[in-house]
Every structure is written in C-alpha cells, then in structure tokens.
C-alpha cells in the first residue's frame, strides 16, 4: 500500500505566516516561502517542457508572478496548490511557444490506443525479482526518469504530482483543475503505461541489488 509513504511535501501550514510578513513589506522572506517547494516547481516544469533551460525559465516566470501577485491569494494555506498551478501555467505557455510546430498535444488525451476493450498490460513479464545486473542504483533512477519522459504529457504530470511529489487527491485536483474521477483514471493508466515502459529494463534476477535500496527490498514478495 502506498499510504505507508511519508508525505514530506506538506508545508502548507508554514506558508501563511511567511506570506503575512511578505505582504507587510518583509520581502526577503520570499526566499523562505518558496524553499520547500522549489524542487517540486522545477520537476513540474521539467515534466512539461523536458528541457532544463526551459524548465528553469518557466519557474523564474512563475516566481515573478508569485512575487507580484501574492496579495491576490486569499487562502494562504493553499499556497502550495496555488503556486504549483502558476508554475504549471507558465510551463505550458512556454511549451506552446516552443513546440508550436510539433504534433504532441500538451493535453494529450488518455487514449492510449486500448480503446474500450480490455487487453491487459501489454507485457506481463515477471520482473518482480529484478533489474539486470548492470542496473546500479543510478542507472535505475535514470531508467525510471527516461521512462517517465517517454510518456504523454498528461501522464507525466499526474505521476509527478501523485507518485513523486505525493500530493493528496484534493491538491492534485486543484492543481490540474480536473475531477477526482479524472485524476484516478489518468493515474491508473499512467502507472500501467510506465510499468510497461520500464519492463525492458528488468530482466535478470539479482535480488542483492534491491536489498541495498535504502535497506529494503522493494522487489521482495509483497505482503498481502
């Protein structure tokens, strides 16, 4: 179960006093205000733009908007969602500017070609027991990052918010401006797609690698 994971990204309650100080003229606290979220901003922008420079530019644009419009945020405890939404908007604006002539739609639908008929996950190889011998930790991370990058934008976005940043349902709905049903459906499809995309990376059993993963072995048989 995923709820065993600790949500370390919840700093919403700490933002309010900082915002009050900022609005009272103490602009230097802006540094402190964004610090808990800045990595998330970058990852969100990058998931849309897939280019480091563009992602940093989009975050800076968003920062200008946050800085100049903070007085418009009424419910200061929602700074996280509000600011993420602004980052996302700036990233999409830049994406449109950059990619006008390309075919991929930023709002690419969930149509993954499976239509309405069930075909199940394309591969069902049993790669529980492990990635190939060459897969050092770094390589595994890189493979995962590449697999995420290979997915349609709407899938990248939802995976980032839910499974990387581990935002809750309400926050995710607010940031994406979609219903709970849409979040669930999209997340479900995105996870299955990602799993498929990763499958070629995993082949040869080598459990010892996973035992070293932060002292745990995520590939061991699941508790049920």
């Amino acid at each position, binding site marked *: *179960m*995923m*709820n065993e*994971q600790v949500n370390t990204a919840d700093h919403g309650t700490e933002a309010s006093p900082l915002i009050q100080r900022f609005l009272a003229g103490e*602009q*230097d606290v*802006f*540094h402190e205000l*964004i610090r808990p979220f*800045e*990595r998330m901003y*970058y*990852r969100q922008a*990058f998931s849309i733009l897939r280019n*480091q420079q563009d992602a*940093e530019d989009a*975050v*800076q644009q968003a*920062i*200008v908007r946050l*800085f100049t419009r903070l007085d418009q945020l009424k419910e200061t405890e929602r700074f996280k969602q509000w600011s993420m939404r602004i980052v996302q908007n700036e990233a999409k604006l830049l994406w449109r500017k950059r990619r006008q002539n390309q075919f991929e739609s930023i709002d690419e639908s969930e149509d993954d070609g499976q239509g309405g008929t*069930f075909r*199940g*996950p394309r591969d*069902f*190889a*049993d*790669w*529980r027991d492990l990635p190939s011998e060459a897969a050092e930790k770094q390589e*595994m*991370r890189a493979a*995962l*990052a590449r697999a*995420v990058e290979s997915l349609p934008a709407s899938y990248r976005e939802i*995976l*980032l918010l839910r*499974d*990387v940043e*581990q935002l809750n349902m309400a926050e995710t709905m607010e940031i994406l401006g979609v219903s709970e049903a849409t979040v*669930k459906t999209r*997340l*479900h499809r995105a*996870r*299955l797609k*990602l*799993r498929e995309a*990763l*499958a070629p990376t*995993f082949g040869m059993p080598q459990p010892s690698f996973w035992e070293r*993963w*932060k002292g745990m072995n*995520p*590939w061991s*048989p*699941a508790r*049920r």
Partner: protein
Amino acid sequence: MVTCKTIIGQLSDYLDGNVSAEMRDKIERHLRGCRRCSAVYDSTRKMLVIMGDEEVFEVPEGYGTRLHSFVDSLVAKGKS
C-alpha cells in the same frame, strides 16, 4: 469470481488503499492464484516505491542558487 480485467482495472485504487474491504478481499484472493496479475501488481507497487525516492528526479546543479539570485533581483527591484 473476479476476472483479470477487474483486477487490473482496480490496481491503482488498490495500491492507494482506495477499495472497499470486500473488493480488497476479492483482489487479494485473485492475486494469490494468478501469476500474471500478481506480477503486474508487485512490479507496479515496487515501481511506485522507487518513484517516491527524492533522488530519482533530480534538479540540476546550481538550480537553487540561480533561483534565489533571481529572487534577490526581484527583492532589490522592489526596494528601489
């Protein structure tokens, strides 16, 4: 009797703990007997564990420094 289709369809909700107790029992019974579904379940679950590792999606070196210099320039502009 639940089908593989149902199991795969509920996988995400099950992983997130968002299924009824009744459905959870059905899923768990199916997983015990179905090698294909249990392989998909286990690997997806483990993939998500790794996804939650902060280091998978790293930010570029110097990003924080550049960002805060930029904030400094905004603050300075505000003061001038």
